[in-house]
């Protein structure tokens, strides 16, 4: 059976160039970068070269790059560390309702510590308004975190505008660029951010490695304590192989970005049009314009996401869903709900995220397979029955 992996927003396979670089580290450069001997020095050297590559990829200085153990860690050091370290400057923080949990839960934790947090709402496309942001600003606002691109619905946020305002008012600005690097330009100078978070495994690098960009002169504080690695912000023996792997991944992702994003955008649009055109009562979640090139998110009304995923899986199609049933949790995706979707519509959402290996044939295959799947599940659905009979749907 055909296998079509369309869950690149969840994670990506490690590309060969990255694996080769990591293998070199594993086999030849196994020393501890903190050791001053001939086994340690090459490890340090590789690590610093990796730092330069990462810096270059986002238009930063190598001194501004901190390697972390994940995107989540980078978000947390920026937000939790940044808020705590700058507490005496003010107590108010701003973020959005559609952030990834690594950001959202960090703010929830800060609220418990006594910080006040404004969660900006989003419109039907999942985008915040700059006016709302301006209105939320207070004299005691110290830190703002607005994601660059949304992981569920692909909405690109107006981070440059936010960044400019924050810079002017000397408010710390963090942006989570985990989903955007390699997809759209990520330039810390253009964004005017003080912090920026990246993750290796979304760009064909390894899992368990992230990057925190931290503008020169900006202060944060560590959440873990130990050795002096990464300027004490991320203590623990450095994961040299993953650091090198990430640096190769980001270098290639940025080099290939323009061409690959154009290719993905075309496939994305074909997939969106194909699904909306062939299955009735289907809607696109997130915007048509200003959308990440690899993200498709549709709601196939009156059917439930997990059942949809399982049916897709049986046809070899790997996707994800914002349905609560996927995780067995109570509420469907906070992102879809914030965009104003009803419970049922959010339940029927399907995210198909494209990547390097995705071909036009894959897209055709998915469009072709999805219709019978939807038909079959709808035939079983009491909600579809209600809809067809014109009965109210709660």
């Amino acid at each position, binding site marked *: 059976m055909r296998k079509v992996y369309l869950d690149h927003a969840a994670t990506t396979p490690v590309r060969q160039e990255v694996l080769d670089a990591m293998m070199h580290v594993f086999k030849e450069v196994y020393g501890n970068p903190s050791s001053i001997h001939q086994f340690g020095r090459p490890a340090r050297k590789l690590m610093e070269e990796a730092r330069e590559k990462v810096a270059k990829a986002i238009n930063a200085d190598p001194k501004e790059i901190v390697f972390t153990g994940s995107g989540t860690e980078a978000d947390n050091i920026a937000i939790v560390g940044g808020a705590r370290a700058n507490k005496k400057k003010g107590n108010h923080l701003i973020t959005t309702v559609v952030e990834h949990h690594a950001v959202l839960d960090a703010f929830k934790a800060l609220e418990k510590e006594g910080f006040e947090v404004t969660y900006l709402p989003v419109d039907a496309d999942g985008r915040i308004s700059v006016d709302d942001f301006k209105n939320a600003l207070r004299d005691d606002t110290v830190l703002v975190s607005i994601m660059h691109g949304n992981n569920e619905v692909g909405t690109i946020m107006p981070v440059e505008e936010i960044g400019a305002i924050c810079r002017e008012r000397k408010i710390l600005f963090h942006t989570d660029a985990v989903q955007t690097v390699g997809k759209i330009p990520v330039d810390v100078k253009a964004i005017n951010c003080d912090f920026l978070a990246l993750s290796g495994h979304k760009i064909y690098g390894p899992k368990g490695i992230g990057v925190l960009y931290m503008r020169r002169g900006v202060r944060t504080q560590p959440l873990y304590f130990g050795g002096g690695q990464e300027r004490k912000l991320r203590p623990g023996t450095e994961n040299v192989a993953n650091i090198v792997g990430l640096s190769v991944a980001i270098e290639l992702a940025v080099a290939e970005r323009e061409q690959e994003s154009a290719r993905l955008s075309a496939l994305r649009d074909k997939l969106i049009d194909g699904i909306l055109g062939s299955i009735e009562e289907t809607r696109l979640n997130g915007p048509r314009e200003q959308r990440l090139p690899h993200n498709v998110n549709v709601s196939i009304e009156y059917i439930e996401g997990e059942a949809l995923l399982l049916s897709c899986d*049986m046809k070899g199609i790997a996707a994800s869903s914002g349905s609560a049933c*996927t995780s*067995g949790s109570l509420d469907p995706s906070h992102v879809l709900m914030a965009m104003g979707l009803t419970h049922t519509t959010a339940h029927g959402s399907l995210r198909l995220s494209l990547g390097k290996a995705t071909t036009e044939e894959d897209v055709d295959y998915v469009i072709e397979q999805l219709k019978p799947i939807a038909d079959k599940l709808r035939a079983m659905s009491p*909600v579809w029955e209600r809809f067809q009979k014109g009965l109210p749907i709660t």
Partner: protein
Amino acid sequence: MYSDKVIDHFTNPRNVGEIEDASGVGEVGNMKCGDIMKMYLKINDETNMIEDVTFKTFGCGAAIATSSMSTEMIKGKTINEALDLTNRAIADALDGLPPVKMHCSVLAEEALKAALLDYQKKSGKNLGLNEEDFEDWDEQ
């Protein structure tokens, strides 16, 4: 995650559909995740035998599989036998469910009881089902 039996019942669900002149229809929503299950029963008034049963479900793989399994388990059985069916028995018949999905099997038990309650009302027979018990149970 799911047993082969769950996958089988999910892929080839038994007894999907509606019954035009059903003796009892029950529709329940599991408040826990907003999923809905509807069950139709065709009961022989003389023998109290469940002659036909169908379902429709809006829910996850476990919800669909338990719906399907529960219809198989009660088809051809008497009302009393159906009243004894528990969500655990349905889950066991499917070789178990992941812990986070156990609540989905409650949906099947509830839908069946709701359909029987509807039959109790329509037929005037006393099956010992009591509307209030239901609401309590629903909230648990």
